[in-house]
Every structure is written in C-alpha cells, then in structure tokens.
C-alpha cells in the first residue's frame, strides 16, 4: 500500500518522530541510567523499533474498505473523563461479582446476547470491547463486522448493555467519544 500524496507523508513523518520520542522516554524510565552508552543505545533502539512498526500503526477502517486510519489519532482530552467514569464502573462491577461469588445460593442465570454497533475506527472497537469486559456482569466473546456477542452473568446486566430498543449507555458513550453517530 503506497501513500503518495504529500500531506499524509508529512503526517507519517510526524507520527514517526512522536513514536520514537515516546519509546525513548519509555526506555529512559525502564533503564534509569543517564550515562552516554545507555542513552545512545536507547535512541538507536527507539528509532529502529518505530521504523519497523510503521505498517502496524496504519489501521484499516472497518466500515469503509480501503480507507486508512492512523492509530495515534485519538481524542485524548475527551478520553480522560471517560477513563474516570470507567474506573468507577470497574469498582461497581467488582463489588457486583464479589456479592455473586460470596452468595451461597449463587443467583446467576447466564445468557448470550448480540448487538450491533457500527464504528469505522478499530481503536474504538477495541476500547468498547475492553470496557464491556471490565463492567458489571458482561464479557465480550466475539466481535465480527461490528456485531458484538456478549456473555452476561445476569439478565439485568444484559439489558443494561443491549436494551430491547435503542442502545445501552456504554456504546453511546464510546460512539460520542469518537464522533460516530
């Protein structure tokens, strides 16, 4: 796949530099040394790694064939309140599961549900699948062409994610995050 117009080549260069810098900072945190030998090895490693990883960061759109989306193109600022909301949901999910596990009668009735959410960015799909796994009573089993197969521990958990009409709270939030309907 060749990219021949000038602006996307420029964007790719910026992405390359940013990725190299991020990898170098990561190296610096892990090594914790400041002498010349370690820093030079770190710079070389970061550049080689980000050069090899270039094709991995060009993601294919899941709805529109042939369109290319850059992996670093995320709504970083809108992501911060979402992460805090998600952390709170994770704590609630764990208390739910703890109550179910420690209950001697174990009132569970597992079921599978499917719902569809079409988004073009693969990162959005990954984020939604991860969030579903971390929140109360549901895990993602399969994602194919935007159709999510969910295994739910209780009926109310399944309904909160995929109600009879409309869509649940979490898919709406992720959709808003990535500006998709």
């Amino acid at each position, binding site marked *: 796949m060749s990219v021949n117009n000038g602006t996307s080549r420029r964007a790719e260069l910026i992405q390359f530099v940013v990725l190299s810098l991020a990898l170098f900072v990561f190296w610096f945190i892990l090594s914790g040394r400041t002498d010349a030998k370690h820093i030079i090895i770190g710079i070389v490693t970061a550049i080689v790694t980000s050069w090899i990883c270039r094709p991995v960061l060009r993601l294919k759109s899941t709805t529109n064939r042939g369109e290319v989306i850059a992996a670093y193109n995320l709504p970083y600022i809108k992501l911060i309140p979402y992460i805090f909301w998600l952390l709170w949901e994770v*704590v609630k999910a764990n208390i739910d599961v703890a109550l179910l596990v420690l209950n001697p009668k174990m009132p569970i009735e597992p079921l599978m549900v499917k719902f569809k959410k079409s988004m073009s960015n693969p990162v959005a799909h990954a984020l939604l699948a991860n969030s579903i796994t971390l929140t109360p009573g549901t*895990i993602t089993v399969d994602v194919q062409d935007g159709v999510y197969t969910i*295994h739910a521990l209780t009926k109310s958990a399944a309904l909160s994610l995929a109600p009879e009409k409309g869509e649940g709270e979490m898919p709406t939030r992720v959709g808003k995050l990535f500006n998709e309907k």
Partner: protein
Amino acid sequence: MKFVALFFLLGGFFFTTVAAIGVIRFPDFYTRLHASGKGDTLGVAMSIIGLAIYNGFNLISLKLMFIVVFIFLANPIGTHVLSRAAYRSGIKPWVRKGE
C-alpha cells in the same frame, strides 16, 4: 500515608481472593472468566497501587504504575482472546436448568 497503602493492599487482596473463589465455584467456563477477568484486574491493580504509595514517589513507583496501566490494558484482552477461542471451538454456555 501508610494507612492509605494498607487500605489499598487489603482491598486488592480481598478482590484477588474473590476472583480465586469465583474461579473455583462457578459452574462453567464463561462464568469463570467473569470472575477472573474482573476480580483479578482490580485486585492486582489495587495491590500494586498500594505498594507504590508505600514506596513513595520515585522511579520505582513510576515502573509500578506502568505495571498497573499494562494490567488494565492486557487483562481484558487476554480474557477476550480466551473466550473467543472457546466460543469458536464450540463450547456451549451453561444455563440454569428447570425454566
């Protein structure tokens, strides 16, 4: 500060224990994944945050926080990969009998 660390460590240990009990008690594979995928993520993350608070602010705490971020990203992916492999191999979910 020590007491905050203690609180986080105890909470983390509680959720890890709950995850283990869930993995032993639940009736089939998918429900066991519920216990391990949620309980373990929060349990280990809380334990390591507690240790980082106990350690104070330095490079080691930064590395510990990196472990926390990695766990939060990687553990749900591991759960999802396992459940998808099981689903595509045709393992049926357990349902409550007599309804």
